[in-house]
């Protein structure tokens, strides 16, 4: 699965994107966050702060309980600040 990071989360993690094979037990956005936290300590730190890490599955905003079945791309980013 393709994982993407944006804005300061990308700087914290140190990569813009990575291609990863997820373990079978990672089935939701929340589960993916926890698993990615074991690979990237600074990602885990960011996730520990409530509300600062948002996610999108296949370019749609997604909550932690969103299933990953069939997803090709998951992105993580801070709250948006455009306009």
């Amino acid at each position, binding site marked *: 699965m393709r994982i*993407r990071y*944006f*804005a*300061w989360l990308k700087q914290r993690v140190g990569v813009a994107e990575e291609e990863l094979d997820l373990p079978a037990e990672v089935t939701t956005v929340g589960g993916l966050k926890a698993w990615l936290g074991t690979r990237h300590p600074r990602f885990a730190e960011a996730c520990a702060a409530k509300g600062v890490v948002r996610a*999108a599955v296949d*370019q*749609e*905003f997604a909550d932690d309980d969103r299933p990953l079945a069939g997803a090709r791309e998951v*992105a993580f*980013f*801070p*709250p*948006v*600040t*455009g*306009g």
Partner: protein
Amino acid sequence: MTVRVVEAPFDPAAELATFARGRSDVGAVASFTGLVRDEHGGERILAMALEHYPGMTERQLARIEAEARARWPLLDVLVIHRVGRMLPGEPIVLVATASAHRAAALEACAFLIDWLKTKAPFWKLEETSSGARWVEARASDDEAAARWERR
């Protein structure tokens, strides 16, 4: 296309010059332009870099535009959002709406910019003399967007 994401500077007045022109069923045009300011939180801004999520951005903008068209009888809509590095005084975003009557044009214009600010994947990085800093989301933006949630 009425939704555009652009890397080069754009000219809102030139865009408005052609927006809804030649249509005599349009009685009202509203527009909003957001520009890079040279100051934020007491610090001087040297430049602004807009990062976005290519693909998702266009999808979200198109969805927000469709929502506006579903809610108000709009005859035309234009949304242009710049990405990349820009300087103080330069336009970041333009939203324009055309309708037969003013309430629809004004409300839809406010709706579009309020939702764009909270539902489109853009992130602002400000360059100041003391370094670069990511702009934090504001609670007031969430409140402005929430005004338009269907109850």
